[in-house]
């Protein structure tokens, strides 16, 4: 059996009387390419927020590499290798691409409290940044402010910032959302080229991307795990078609 990197046990979140997440026990295997799908309002975002520590669960626990991280703060989870991207780009508008990547790398290396040392002095940081720039096709815009990048490049930087954290588990929240058709291919191929040992959970609406990228799919409906299986199993599952694929076609 393969090792599990991220696991939730009976994870539950209630807002008043509303059950946003109901008793979700979920496992992400090491090196997985796992997709989480579900109709609008299924609780995907709440689930991500529970995993990353934005929300505190009402019940249940989150385990990363066998350790309980339920009580850990956001940044503590990131330091342990649980990193996310956002559906809507969350960049550092006033900084340029190199500065953004450098500050993430400094933070990862535990340099964030150094207050008299120049930010770009760490040995090897230039080569690492150059590597990230070429991995994500950002070489041509490396000295431009994040806010001035074309949307497709912003999307790639969104992912590059997360990868710069050297994640063990990467949560990709609709990475292709809003990307113009011309840039889609690039975003998808950059995603496919992510290091194999990083376990990835992809939250996505776009079935095309899900079927191309993932080898395992979980379906979330009304806050609960509705089905889970290989891409083939899920794509053939009549119940899933009914609640999700069918529903989406009419939406």
């Amino acid at each position: 059996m393969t090792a599990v990197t991220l696991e939730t046990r009976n994870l539950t979140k209630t807002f008043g009387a509303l059950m946003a997440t109901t008793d979700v026990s979920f496992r992400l295997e090491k090196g997985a390419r796992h997709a989480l799908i579900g109709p609008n309002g299924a609780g995907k975002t709440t689930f991500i927020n529970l995993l990353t520590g934005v929300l505190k669960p009402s019940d249940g626990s989150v385990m990363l590499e066998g350790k309980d991280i339920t009580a850990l703060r956001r940044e503590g989870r990131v330091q342990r290798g649980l990193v996310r991207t956002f559906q809507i780009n969350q960049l550092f508008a006033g900084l340029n691409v190199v500065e953004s990547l450098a500050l993430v790398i400094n933070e990862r290396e535990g340099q964030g409290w150094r207050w008299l040392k120049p930010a770009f002095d760490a040995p090897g940081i230039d080569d690492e940044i150059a590597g990230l720039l070429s991995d994500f096709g950002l070489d041509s815009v490396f000295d431009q402010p994040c806010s001035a990048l074309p949307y497709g490049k912003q999307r790639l930087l969104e992912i590059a910032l997360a990868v710069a954290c050297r994640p063990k588990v990467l949560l990709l929240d609709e990475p292709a959302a809003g990307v113009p058709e011309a840039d889609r291919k690039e975003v998808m191929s950059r995603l496919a080229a992510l290091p194999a040992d990083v376990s990835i959970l992809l939250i996505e609406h776009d079935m095309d991307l899900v079927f191309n990228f993932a080898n395992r799919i979980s379906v979330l409906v009304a806050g609960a795990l509705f089905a889970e299986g290989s891409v083939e199993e899920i794509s053939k599952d009549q119940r899933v078609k009914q609640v999700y694929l069918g529903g989406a076609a009419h939406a």
Partner: protein
Amino acid sequence: MMSVREKRQSATAEAVRSVMKRHGRWSRLEIGFWLIAVAAWFLLPGEHLILTEIVIFAILALSIDLVLGYAGIVTLGQAAMYGVGAYASGLLSIHVTGEPLTGLLVAALAGALIAFPTSFLLLRGADLTRLMVTLGVAAVLHEIANQASWLTGGADGLQGIAIDPLFGTFEFDIYGHTGYAYSLVVLFILLLLARFVTASPFGYSLKAIRDNPLRASAVGIPVKARLVAVYTLSGAYAGIAGALFTQTQQFISLDVLSFQKSADGLMVLVIGGTGYLYGGLVGALAYELIQDALSSVTPQYWQFWLGALLIAFVITGRDRPRQLINSISARISRPRQPGRLDAVTVADKGKPT
């Protein structure tokens, strides 16, 4: 043999290094600015009092820039730390020692001591909450100073401040010759320190928090702890500004803790521009010059015109001074490295949104 990809990557690394090298370099404009400030000591001996006032104002604005320009915390209560620094150094001179450098140190600690607990109140709220909390803390301290007249002299002001000569040699004279030189050196040291801080990993994490606190925490930055740290540092800066005021004026009134003081500090910073450290200096200078010009033209209505100017200025774009300085700076630097980055930054900032 290097592959095409490797070649490209090493070219990128080279370009990245050149961008990194440009960071933190002294621009000619910056050097020129300091040369003029020093020259003013020799060439304008009759203006040293007003220049001292400008420098102290600049330090207060610099302390606000650290939190507003770099960490995105709006504040209307910087006078809390400024005033406490002023009183701390004044009381020290009366009861313990009149040695000025000790006074600066004590004032820095006093400012930090007020800022540290206050910062925890700033962590939960958004901008409006922060405005009110900073305002409230300053108002509370103002009233405490007013009531504790046995200690502070209350509304009559603190009497009997006596500052020893600097290094035992230089008396604080009534023309402000010593005062200006002393304040300018302190400003230079504080600015130098701020330059290091803002170019450090810590400084960049603040900019990340300012631009996007959500993402900052999602890349592992402990947002709250960093905000506490920078607010405390800013409190020390404001405390030092207050001590300089005490030592050069040798008198303190409740004004040092007033809302007006906080508002003026913020206004000066906004006039000069936030987030590049020199905004406070430029703003304080501009503010004094405008005030001087207006009050000689219309002695009765200068505050009306000052207000009108401020409104016009903010409406037309408060990034203008910074843009102007960037473009002048780019022009007088050698065009060896074409200022592509600066050009883009300026063009972007100029866009109406």
